[in-house]
């Protein structure tokens, strides 16, 4: 019993689910649900259909080359059952999965960092150009001028007092 990969979306096909199509050239295609099957029949290219894993990997939106991804590989030579090997493998699988998830998350975060940078710059630009929409240029200036004048008068009076 194996969990296969859907040809179109690369999702898991559990036993008892999905459809398998065998072509005249003996190549077989598995699909997880009728959505993928119908898309395939419409001759859509999974590498160009945005929601599939194939697209995401092909356009660099997800981690593709990494050592943690090399562990899961279909092997054609069977290995004889050996209890300790199986035990160790299950432990290793769990650890590898952790590491893989971390790395994938990091990859995506890095990708999105650029967006944050751009956002910041845009905000600064926006404020610089359109500040006049929420605050008139000389909004507090009148008061300032008044205060200044009052201060100046005060100073003059003080000076006069001093002179006197």
């Amino acid at each position, binding site marked *: *019993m*194996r*969990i296969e990969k859907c040809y179109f979306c690369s999702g*898991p096909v559990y036993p008892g689910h999905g459809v398998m199509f065998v072509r005249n050239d003996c190549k077989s295609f598995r699909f997880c649900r009728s959505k993928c099957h119908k898309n395939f029949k419409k001759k859509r290219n999974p590498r160009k259909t945005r929601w599939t894993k194939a697209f995401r990997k092909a356009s660099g939106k997800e981690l593709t080359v990494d*050592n*943690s991804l*090399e*562990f*899961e*590989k*279909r*092997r054609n030579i*069977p*290995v*004889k*059952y*050996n*209890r300790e*090997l*199986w035990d*160790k*493998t*299950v432990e*290793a*699988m*769990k*650890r*590898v*999965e952790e*590491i893989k998830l*971390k790395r994938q998350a*990091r990859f995506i975060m890095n990708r999105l*960092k650029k967006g944050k940078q751009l956002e*910041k710059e*845009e*905000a*600064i630009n*926006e*404020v610089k150009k*359109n*500040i006049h*929409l*929420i*605050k*008139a240029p*000389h*909004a*507090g200036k*009148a*008061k300032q001028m008044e205060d200044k004048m009052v201060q100046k008068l005060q100073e003059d009076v003080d000076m006069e007092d001093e002179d006197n």
Partner: protein
Amino acid sequence: MALYNFKKIMVVPTAKEFIDITLSKTQRKTPTVIHKHYQIHRIRHFYMRKVKFTQQNYHDRLTQILTDFPKLDDIHPFYADLMNVLYDKDHYKLALGQINIAKNLIDNVAKDYVRLMKYGDSLYRCKQLKRAALGRMCTILKRQKSSLEYLEQVRQHLSRLPTIDPNTRTLLLCGYPNVGKSSFINKVTRADVDVQPYAFTTKSLFVGHMDYRYLRWQVVDTPGILDHPLEDRNTIEMQAITALAHLRAAVLYVMDVSEQCGHTLQEQLELFNNIRPLFANKPLIIVANKCDVKKITELSEENQACDRLLAHRVDTKMKGKKVHDVLNRLHLAMPTKRDEKERPPFIPEGALTRRKAMEVDAPKRKLERDLEMELGDDYILDLQKYWDLMNDDEKQDKIPEVWEGHNIADYIDPDIMKKLQELEKEEELKERAGEYDSDDESEDEEMQEIRVLAKQIREKKQLMVVESKEKDVHGPRMPRTATKVRTLEKEMGNLGLDMNDKDGSHYAQQARRSRSIAKKRKREASAPPTSKTRSQSASRPPRDQSGLRDPKMAKKAKKIMKNSQKGMNRQGKKGEADRHVFDLKPKHLLAGKRKSGTTDRR
């Protein structure tokens, strides 16, 4: 040279059939409708087409016959001679010649009548011409009746001739009638030739095939030959003679030792001497047949016809040269001994033990069936106990296959622990290098302020867009001065300007100034006005008061105005110039059937 296949000659129809076929084809495949009011060129074209079509069909069919039948000069002389013997060369050529002539005549007829048709000036004339043309063509063909019948018979016979390949290895059996040639061929090949006690059972050539030394040999059986001169020979004997003359074969002259065929040995000898010239350049074997009836040793010494007492031997002298050619190219390679080491053939141990076990009846091991019998109801088929594992106690384990959506079989690897360790090391390095540190740097206050302002700006922009969409562009266009002062004041307040000192502002001063000027104007009415426009604008009454004496009249005027507007308002018109016609009950929505869907919602 065209390759002829005697079996694939097209059927030659009888004259009547031929005519019927062609005429019905013309009727079916050409247009049939014509009226006399059509244009004359169209009528002419219509009938010309029919004539040409018929001519084309006859021509094609006759040409096919002429090409299908073989030309006696083009085929192998054996076949040419055979056909001459069977069908008479002259008659054959004549028949084909007649067909050729007929073809040419038909072409000429068609040409002439097509030329005449060009001058046909009415439907009736053209039709008559066409009738005449077709009639003549059919008469020509009717005259060829006998030729066509003859050719059909020739075709049928030709297709049934045995396929004798004149270039391959052949054995030719000849001799008196009833000496045993057909029996011989029946025995040696898979042929099934009639064998009967009367003479001339075999009336034509028969072919059988046999294998000798991995090669295919043709064996040709001929009808018997009697001893009289060539000119007296009939068709059947001539076939045998033709075969003898043209086929490069090994000749087996069969003699009946027991004289059961009805001819003495002497006669047979004489025949042999007579046809000896035909055996030139061919390996010859004399076969003494029917020796079960009379032994060779019982023959008198005078009979020296039989040289050998054999069942059968093939003489490959004819093919000798060819064999040498092949031998030159073949070479059997035997590996030379490298050293003196003995290298016997290798037989695996298992094969030896099995052989020994077969010889000795070894005790059988315990079968599953026996186990089942023993345990009865408790028996469970457990194939896992036959597994060949490294530790025997693991045989009954339940092997896990899947974990959290991953196949364990994909991860199984003898060096998985090593790889995992490397991965862990890498991970450690990465962590130390700080790759996994979360980097939300706390932004300074300035940046936060900027973000808040940017958000406000965006909201304001959206509001402006919405407002501009809401404004009424189709209504009257008000000048900018129509915006009320109050809204302006509010707006400016929102922008952060200080609105407290309103009296001292510029716009308030201006308003005061204009009012005061107007008042002053009225007091000094006697003085002449300084500019004309100002005076007129001051003295002119507003439009809804001009021409009305008192409020009562004003009221009436207003009433009349409202009255005249009532009609327009009721019809939803925008003004007196609005002549738009509304389509309040469009027909395509409220009437008629729908292509798909129901009409119970309109």
